């Protein structure tokens, strides 16, 4: 189960056709860039969830 959470951000950041576009922009930053930048903290969150599931990080 924890591996599912770890693999999701990996798939998202490699799924180039998903984000290889300019629109929609955020604060006039093209989608390509803000999507990847937002994905960084999201990936950290997924790792945190994986750690919770594992329950070993006490």
């Amino acid at each position: 189960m924890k591996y599912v959470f770890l693999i999701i951000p990996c798939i998202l950041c490699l799924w180039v056709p998903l984000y290889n576009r300019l629109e929609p922009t955020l604060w006039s930053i093209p989608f390509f860039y803000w999507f990847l930048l937002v994905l960084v903290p999201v990936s950290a969150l997924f790792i945190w969830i994986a750690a919770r599931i594992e329950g070993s990080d006490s």
Partner: protein
Amino acid sequence: MIDNLNWTATAVFIALFALVTVLGFVAARWKAGNLDELHEWGLGGRRFGAWITWFLLGGDLYTAYTVIAVPALVYAIGAYGFFAVPYTILIYPLVFVTMPRLWNVAHKKGYITGADFIYGRYGSKGLELAVAFTGILATMPYIALQLVGMEKVIQALGFQGQGLMSHAPLTIAFVILALYTYKSGLRAPAMIAFVKDIMIYVFVIAAVVIIPAQLGGYGAIFEAAGKVYAAKAAATPNVGLTLTPAQVSPFITLAIGSAMALFMYPHSMTGVLSASGPGAIRRNAMTLPAYSLVLGLIALLGFMAHAAGIQVANPQDAIPQLVLKMFPAWFAGFCFAAIAIGALVPAAVMSIGAANTFTRNVWRPFVEPGMSPQRESYLAKLMSLIVKVGALVVILFMPTKFALDLQLLGGVWMIQIFPAIVLGLYTRWYSGTALLIGWAVGFVLGTWLSWGPAAWVPTSVIGGFGAYNGLIALAANVAVATVVSLVARSVARDETAPADFEDARSPA
């Protein structure tokens, strides 16, 4: 030589440099240990908690070269340079899963390097040597590139010189670095990393707030950059604000390959093994992405340089010039000091990692099997000096392009030890001999693929798609290792037990 020196910026730069020099020497007394033992000198006694490890690894992995090179690539070709972001996203799930296991077995068995683990697991001196050799070979150009990063900012301060004199400031900085690394070991970069990382954060936050405000916002920045790429596209294909179809598969495979290679480097392992436990490593896997975010923001500086009208022949000068143009002199000095100090931390950790590896996995098994701990520590200290001098010689007497090419190859080489290390954390199904043959095939194939007609190239075209050479060679490596393992079963000794890889049960 110093006629064009920016005095304000230089004064700030030197003051900050002096501060970290003092820290580097003071560090010897921090978390005091017997520095005549290798695990104390070269791993800080394995006493770095989650917080120190965070600063050390962050300072270690996100180097001065990165701060210069990533935005330089964005400046030159646009979106493709952003591969650094998926690359650094991929690293941490991988670290979270594998590195606690490596720490556990290393702690249990007293391993100091990756090659130590390889010998313990597979009982193969040949494979141990291959892993050690790969690590040391790939580290040298990496240290050299830290110097390139330093040199760029020293030039931007206005220092010019002829011949060897042009390298004088760099040489002085490096001698200082060599001395306190010799004295304090891994404690020095760990302590300096605090200062360096905070400075880099200040630099980046200021840059992403102040520069867009002066240039009319992000909309104007991307518009200006888009125009530059559109003008370039006529002459050179594959530039732009998004990836061209031909860039997609190289972008993906480069991100995957770079992520797999990073934690195979001796300096990354040194950072991991110096942590105080598997929990500290897992917490770092969750929190180190903060640096990836910073790296992504740094990459945006490449676009800002276009909007600011920076035109440089060498893309690597784009960021120093942008900083000079957009910030007051004192803050430019601060930013340049952040980048230069940012070179010191990885250079120190890399030289320590390479020195540990040489001492434990080349010298001890093949030259002096009965080394005392004092001898080990002494030799590692000496090697850390020799490695740095080697890197300095590369910079002084070889074209920078050579170091860049070697660094590119370094990743291709490093990834070839991935099967031995990572598969070894889970299974002993592969034999040492098979992994050694696989490593040799991958090493040769990867180097051969990178040998372009005019220059070294990182990707090749396979089946109509571009792919990172390191990954292509890795596929061959694993295929060969699998076949040979099927044919010839291993009978060598494995000194590890399955329980050694699991977290130790805390005494309840």
